[in-house]
C-alpha cells in the first residue's frame, strides 16, 4: 500500500500555525506513507494542476490531504482524483485548518495534533474501497394529490414543461376550497374569477393533454421510491361520462330525489344527480348512488331520458375503478380542515342556529351558495348585528397552540363584505390576538377598522365566552365580565390537518409533525419537501397558509420536480450507504426498526434483511444497531473507523 500525504499550507493560514516539517517527521515513518508533500494553496488552479500531475506521476494507492475542512474542498479534490484516473473515494481529507491551525495557540501542540489527525487518516484510508455512484432509470411523470390551488399550480407548471401529470382529487370538482368563496383577501378579488383562468388552462389549455384529472379518486397504495413510485388510485363511479357530457344540466331538474347539499353545509337541497355547485369544474354532473332511486331497486331513468345527447352519457353501470400509475415524484397538496368548533361547547356551535363556522359563512356570502349570496339568518330574517370570533381553538394549549395566521385576514374581509352587502350592519370582532403581516394585509385591517359600524374587542380567551340563545338574539357573555347581543355569530377556527392526511401519511410513509401536518424536510430551507425523497408538499397540508403562499409552494414543488427529475437523466445514487451481509444476518429486523427512511427490506422467505440503496441516506444507525454485525456502511466501515481511532491515538 502506497499512501501519498499532501499537506496544504493554505496560503499561510495553516503554515503560520502548524509546522509541516515537524508533521512530516512524525508521520513520514508511519507504515504505508510513501511520500509527504507540501504545497502552498492546493485549491488554487496551480495547486489543482500540481495535485493532478503528481497523482498521475506517483500513482499512489491512497491519498491523504491535510488541508481545510472537507466541508470546503472535499468535492474539489474528489474531482481531481477522478480526473487523474483515481477512484475519488480512495482519499481522506484531514481538517488541519478549522480544527487545528485556527484553534490551537501553540505551534508545537498544533503540529502534534495535526500529526495525530493525519495518522488516523493514513490508517483509515488504507481500508477505503473504491466506490462508484450508481445510476437507475427514473419515470419523469408526476402524481399530484389534491386539486386545490397549490396542487393545480404544481400540476400546471409541470405540464407546461411538457411533462405528464396525473391529479388525484377526492371531490367531483377541482379548485379546492377557494372556488367556493365569493371573494378572497387581501384585495377582495372574486375567487372563482381569479381561479378560473388557471382551471381552464388545466382543463382545456395548450398543455391540457399532459394533465390527467382523476376526480372522485384517492390514492390507496404507494410502493417504490424516488424516480419509481407505483401508485394505486381508486376512482369512485361518477355515472356520467366525463368526456362526452357537455354539462348542460338538463338531467338535473327531472330527478325526483332531493337531499341536503353538502357543498352548502346542508342549508339547501340538491338532486341525486347534480353539479356540485354552479360553476364547479369539470362541468359534469355526478349521481349520488346513496340517494338515487335505482340503488333502492327502482328502474328510474328520468335523467338518462332527459339527456339531449341521447343514451350512453349517463352510465348506470359505471363501476369503481382501481388503476395504477408509475411516477417519479409525488406532490401532496391535500389541504386542511377547520378545527371542529363543537369541541369548544360553550360556543354553541351545532346547537344554536346562526352560529356558523367561517367556511359556512363563506358559502352564505357566495353567489353560488344556498342563499345565492343573500346574507340571511336561518329563519330568513336579515341580520342587524354579526359577531366574529377570532382565535377559535388557536393560541390555546388545550386546543391548538399555534396561530393559523389567515383567520384575521378573512375576518376583516367578512367585515367589509358585510358592510357591502348590508350597509349599517353592526360587526363586532372578538379576538385574542390580531395579526396582519405582509405588504398588503394591513390595509384590509385598516379598512375594517374604518367601518363605522365595526367594533374590536379583545376577549383574550374564547373559553370564557358563553354563547346562548336569548329570545330571537344570540347572547355572547364573557364570564370574566361583559356581554353583547348579535343576530349571527361567525367562528374563525384554527386551520388543522384534514382528517384523511393521517391515512395518506401512512400510505406515503411521510411523517407528520406534532400537530398532524405533513412534516417538511427543513422548516426554512426545504419546506416544500417531505422527509421522503421524491414526495413534495404544497399548501395547507404542510402548515396553515394563505392562497399566495400555497400557490408559491406549489411552484416550489414543480421546481424540485423539474430540476431533479429530468427526462432522460438517471437517478444517481450516492455510494455511501449501508449494506447487509446475508450470511451474518439473523433476521432479527432491529435494523428495520431504527431506519428513519424505511430503506431496509426484509425477505420473508430467506429471513434476511437487505438495504435499498436508493432510499438509504447513509446515516449508519442500522450498522451501530445490528447485533449480529451483519450491517456495515460503505466508506464508514467498522474497520475503517476502528483504524482511524487507533491512528489518532497512536
Amino acid at each position, binding site marked *: 500500500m502506497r499512501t501519498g500525504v499532501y499537506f496544504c499550507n493554505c496560503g499561510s493560514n495553516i503554515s503560520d500555525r502548524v509546522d509541516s516539517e515537524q508533521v512530516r517527521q512524525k508521520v513520514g515513518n508511519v507504515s504505508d506513507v510513501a511520500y509527504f508533500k507540501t504545497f502552498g494553496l492546493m485549491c488554487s488552479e496551480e495547486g489543482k494542476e500540481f495535485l493532478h500531475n503528481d497523482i498521475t506521476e506517483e500513482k499512489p494507492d491512497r491519498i491523504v490531504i491535510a488541508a481545510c475542512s472537507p466541508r470546503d474542498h472535499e468535492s474539489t479534490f474528489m474531482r481531481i482524483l477522478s480526473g487523474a484516473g483515481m477512484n475519488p473515494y480512495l482519499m481522506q481529507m484531514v481538517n488541519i485548518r478549522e*480544527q487545528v491551525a485556527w*484553534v490551537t495557540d501553540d505551534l508545537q501542540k498544533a503540529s502534534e495534533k495535526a500529526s495525530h489527525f493525519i495518522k488516523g487518516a493514513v490508517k483509515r484510508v488504507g481500508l477505503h474501497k473504491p466506490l462508484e455512484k450508481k445510476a437507475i432509470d427514473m419515470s419523469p411523470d408526476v402524481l399530484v394529490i389534491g386539486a386545490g390551488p397549490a396542487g393545480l399550480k404544481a400540476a400546471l407548471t409541470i405540464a407546461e414543461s411538457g411533462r405528464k401529470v396525473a391529479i388525484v382529487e377526492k371531490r367531483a370538482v377541482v379548485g379546492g376550497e377557494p372556488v367556493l368563496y365569493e371573494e378572497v383577501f387581501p384585495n377582495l378579488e372574486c375567487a372563482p374569477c381569479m381561479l378560473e383562468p388557471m382551471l381552464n388552462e388545466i382543463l382545456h389549455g395548450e398543455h391540457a393533454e399532459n394533465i390527467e384529472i382523476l376526480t372522485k379518486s384517492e390514492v390507496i397504495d404507494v410502493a417504490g421510491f424516488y424516480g419509481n413510485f407505483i401508485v394505486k388510485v381508486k376512482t369512485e363511479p361518477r355515472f356520467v361520462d366525463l368526456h362526452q357530457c357537455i354539462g348542460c344540466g338538463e338531467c338535473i331538474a327531472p330527478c325526483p330525489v332531493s337531499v341536503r347539499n353538502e357543498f352548502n353545509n346542508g342549508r339547501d337541497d340538491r338532486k341525486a344527480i347534480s353539479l356540485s355547485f354552479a360553476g364547479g369544474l369539470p362541468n359534469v354532473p355526478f349521481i349520488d348512488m346513496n340517494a338515487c332511486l335505482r340503488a333502492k331497486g327502482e328502474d328510474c331513468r328520468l335523467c338518462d331520458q332527459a339527456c339531449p345527447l341521447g343514451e350512453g352519457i349517463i352510465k348506470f353501470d359505471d363501476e369503481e375503478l382501481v388503476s395504477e400509475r408509475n411516477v417519479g415524484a409525488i406532490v401532496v397538496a391535500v389541504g386542511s380542515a377547520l378545527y371542529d368548533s363543537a369541541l369548544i361547547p360553550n360556543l354553541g356551535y351545532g346547537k344554536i342556529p346562526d352560529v356558523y363556522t367561517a367556511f359556512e359563512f363563506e358559502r352564505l356570502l357566495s353567489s353560488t351558495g344556498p342563499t345565492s349570496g343573500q346574507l340571511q339568518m336561518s329563519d330568513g330574517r336579515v341580520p342587524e348585528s354579526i359577531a366574529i370570533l377570532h382565535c377559535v381553538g388557536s393560541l390555546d394549549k388545550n386546543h391548538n397552540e399555534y396561530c393559523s395566521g389567515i383567520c384575521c385576514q378573512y375576518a376583516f374581509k367578512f367585515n367589509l363584505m358585510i358592510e357591502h352587502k348590508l350597509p349599517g350592519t353592526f360587526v363586532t370582532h372578538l379576538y385574542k390576538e390580531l395579526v396582519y403581516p405582509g405588504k398588503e394585509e394591513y390595509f384590509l385591517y385598516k379598512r375594517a377598522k374604518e367601518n363605522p359600524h365595526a367594533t374590536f374587542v379583545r376577549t383574550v380567551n374564547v373559553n370564557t365566552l358563553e354563547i346562548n340563545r336569548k329570545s330571537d338574539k344570540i347572547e355572547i357573555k364573557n364570564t370574566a365580565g361583559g356581554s353583547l347581543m348579535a343576530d349571527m355569530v361567525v367562528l374563525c377556527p384554527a386551520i388543522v390537518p384534514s382528517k384523511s392526511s393521517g391515512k395518506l401519511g401512512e400510505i406515503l410513509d411521510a411523517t407528520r409533525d406534532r400537530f398532524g401536518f405533513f412534516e417538511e424536510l427543513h422548516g426554512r430551507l426545504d419546506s416544500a419537501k417531505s422527509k421522503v425523497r421524491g414526495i413534495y408538499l404544497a399548501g395547507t397540508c404542510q402548515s396553515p397558509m394563505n392562497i399566495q403562499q400555497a400557490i408559491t409552494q406549489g411552484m416550489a414543488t414543480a421546481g424540485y420536480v423539474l430540476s431533479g427529475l429530468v427526462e432522460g437523466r438517471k437517478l444517481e445514487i450516492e455510494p455511501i450507504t449501508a449494506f447487509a451481509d446475508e450470511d451474518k444476518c439473523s433476521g432479527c429486523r432491529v435494523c428495520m426498526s*431504527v431506519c428513519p427512511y424505511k430503506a431496509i427490506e426484509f425477505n420473508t422467505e430467506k429471513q434476511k434483511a437487505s438495504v435499498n440503496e436508493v432510499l438509504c441516506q447513509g*446515516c449508519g444507525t442500522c450498522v*451501530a444497531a445490528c447485533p449480529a454485525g451483519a450491517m456495515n456502511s460503505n466508506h464508514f466501515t467498522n474497520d475503517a473507523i476502528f483504524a482511524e481511532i487507533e491512528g*489518532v*491515538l497512536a
Partner: protein
Amino acid sequence: MKEDNGSANEALGEALNEALNEALNEALFEPKIVGFLCNWCSYAGADKAGGAQKSYPPNVNVVKVMCSGRVDPQFVLKAYDGGADGVLILACHPGDCHYKEGNYRALARHRMLLRMLEQHGIEAARCRFDYVSAGEGDRFVKILTEMVDTVRALGPLKALV
C-alpha cells in the same frame, strides 16, 4: 544495622522517586480524548469555532461520522483500549438530526454504555454525550474545554476494559 539503614534509605529513595515521578506525570498529564462528531451539526459546529479562530485545548482527536447514530458502543471501547482517557460524542440537537432521529439512538446507546462502563470502573464523566449545532462554535469550545478539564482532573484512565 548500617547496611540495613542503607537499603532502607535506598528503598525510601526509590519510593520517593516513584512518587515524585507520578506527581510530575500527573501534573504534566495531558488527557487524550477521542471526539465522535456527526457530519451535519457538531462537525460543522467545530468548523464554526475554527472559522471564528477560537482557541481551545488540542487534546481532542476528531473522528467524523455521518450521524451520531453511527457511533457503535464498540467505537468507544476501542478508543479506551487504544489509550484514550475520555470520549466525547457530539450530536445534533433534539429535533434537528439530519437523519431525523439518529441522535436519539445515540443518546439511548450512550445511556446503556454508561451503565456498562461503570461496571468496568470507568467513570461516567469520561464518556460525555452532548449536542452542538452547526452554528454553535462557542458551545463546541465550551463543551470541549469542560471535557478536557474534567478528564484532566480524573487523571489517566487506569481501569482495564
